[in-house]
């Protein structure tokens, strides 16, 4: 008889449309990688191993967004095989940079740019995994943060809720002791509306946050947009800033702000 409770929990990592950056974050945990590998059975991680074990899996991490019919199908199969499913990164959580197609005519993209559009199979949208299946947790970031990833994996493996606060980059700046780039230098910054998690890197390097972690728990774009205007951005700049790596998610917020 198998005693599943004693066996190491199985971890699977999947990829849809993405840059591989979020799953690479796992390989960038140099100090923890071998320890982690001793605690879980890495059952499916094509980027790192040729060994593939069949499901079901205790925890699946999904990177990337759904941009093809085949991937929509695949994500349902992954869900069916996974006890817990966590999305990693802006692609899987908000559609990613490739969701810029959601605001354009993809048929036109395909027709005018590929010589043989019929070779290309793509949906007209890039959607997050949660638009297709139930998701147990969404980890934000483009890319995700190493520390947060380890927290999520450990939390799920020990059956507790991950400790990932919903507050904004501003909180992280205060904690880090970074002088506010907007107040001190009039630099446009999405920090007030962006989900914390990166450790507020950009302001520490003297640039405004560009929102790579997507919207935070409470977003007040109505208050922020005039500030961005004051600091020299016109409407087009603001639109570009909000429509980058988390375009679909910020767009939802913008629609709520201007009904």
């Amino acid at each position, binding site marked *: 008889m198998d005693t599943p409770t004693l066996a190491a929990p199985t971890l699977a990592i999947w990829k849809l449309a993405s*840059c591989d950056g979020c799953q690479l974050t796992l390989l*960038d945990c*140099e100090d923890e990688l071998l320890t982690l590998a001793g605690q879980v059975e890495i059952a499916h991680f094509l980027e790192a*191993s040729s060994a593939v074990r069949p499901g079901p899996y205790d925890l699946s991490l999904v990177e990337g967004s759904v941009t093809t019919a085949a991937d929509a199908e695949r994500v349902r199969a992954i869900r069916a095989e996974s006890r817990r499913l966590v999305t990693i990164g802006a692609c899987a959580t908000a559609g990613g940079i*490739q969701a810029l197609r959601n605001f354009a005519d993809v048929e036109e993209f395909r027709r005018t*740019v590929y010589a043989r559009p019929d070779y290309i199979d793509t949906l007209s949208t890039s959607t997050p995994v949660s638009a297709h299946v139930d998701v147990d947790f969404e980890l934000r970031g483009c890319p995700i943060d190493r520390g947060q990833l380890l927290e999520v994996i450990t939390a799920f493996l020990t059956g507790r809720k991950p400790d990932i606060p919903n507050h904004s980059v501003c909180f992280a700046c205060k904690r880090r002791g970074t002088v506010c780039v907007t107040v001190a230098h009039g630099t446009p910054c999405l920090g007030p509306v962006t989900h914390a998690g990166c450790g507020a890197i950009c302001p520490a390097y003297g*640039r405004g946050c560009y929102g790579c972690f997507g919207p935070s728990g409470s977003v007040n774009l109505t208050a922020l947009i005039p500030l961005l205007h004051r600091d020299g951005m016109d409407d087009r700049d603001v639109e570009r800033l909000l429509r980058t790596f988390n375009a679909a998610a910020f767009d939802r917020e913008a629609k709520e702000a201007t009904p």
Partner: protein
Amino acid sequence: MTHRGSRVLHVGSLSRVEGEGALHVHMHEGRVTETRLQIYEPPRFFEAFLRGRAYTEPPDITARVCGICPVAYQMSACRAVENACGVDVDGQLAELRRLLYCGEWIESQVLHIYLLHAPDFLGCDGAIDLARAHRGHVERGLRLKQTGNAILELLGGRAIHPVNVRLGGFHRVPARAELRPLGERLRRAMDDAWATVRWVAGFDFPDAGCDNVLLALTEPGRYAIDAGVPAAMAAPSTHGLPADTTRRLPIRTFPVSAFTKEVVEHQVPHSTALQATLRGERHLTGSLARYAINGKLLSPTAVEAAKEAGLGDPLAGTVCRNPFRSILVRAVEALYAVEEALRIVEAYEPPPRPHMEVTPRAGTGHGATEAPRGLLYHRYVLDAEGTVTDAVLVPPTAQNQAAIEEDLRRLVQDESDRGGGTDAELTALCERAIRNHDPCISCSTHFLDLTLHRS
């Protein structure tokens, strides 16, 4: 094993490569009739949505093409936009860019060597598996990789998609004292990098050769990483030489601005990536090409390492055309990058300003740099306000794809002519042959410059 009838080898999802791809090999009556490296990575349309973005945006946006070589994308994008705006970043700012790029070279080359490629030579499924039998080696690899990441984190803010890069230089440049701990770390990393060369040199390499044109950037006085002009080394077959020749062949350079005239892309039905050829010939970019074209410009330490590793003497013009030995060249390049990073850190004087002003103007700009897996070219057309009206990205894998398919064809044919090879063995051989080129499949997802094909 029968040589009659048809035989199909198929790998549904390639592992230990960046991105997603599949492989198909067809044989008929003992002849390989078709080899296809299928890239089924869904298209992400970067070149389409770069249109309409501000000229300041391509470095951050194109970083997201590839999580393994974001700096390569940032640097090629910066060079191309700056070129359109008539700016040439030099002095310590240029040195800092090279330092950042060295960080990515170390991280990416070491990742490929230890985590993706070495398991092939040692009969393991992956690095975790490898660590069971060779823990010390894997730990050394992780330590060395971390040194690359430390450079990226200090200078770029983070290792994947660094935030500190901007047109004209950086948002913030480090003080001298900030780089000091990096210097100590790099000195220690020299030992790990040497040990890596020696470890890899002990692997067992199959005999193989490739007869492609080799394409890499070249610049006077140093091994090209972040700048240079494209240089093509002729294919041996065009000179009636055997494919495994180790002699230097004639090299021809051309301006970066002529890139898409020389390297022409075309779409193939089985792949979302485009395939490119150099004036109609198969060509290969990446470590083997760089080493062949620029090997004599390596540092004395790296030259010594190359000789010790059995790559011959690059100063005497020896080149390596065996794709299985690319892991050796990668190890030598990692050592070079550690040493080069150390040199830059030690000579560093903070520049007066963190970046040069880049004022937009209407025009076309070209930029090419050496991503760890090969030459990466960007071209942008800007209008007078600095809005991008057209963008072209030619990643290394699109260029290498035809050469990889040819490698597969030759290997399977040779093996089968020798009468050997079960399907499983041939498939494993093909997977190794693909990993030899460290293909970056996410990068390959890419558009075609339509003007080439309108009928």
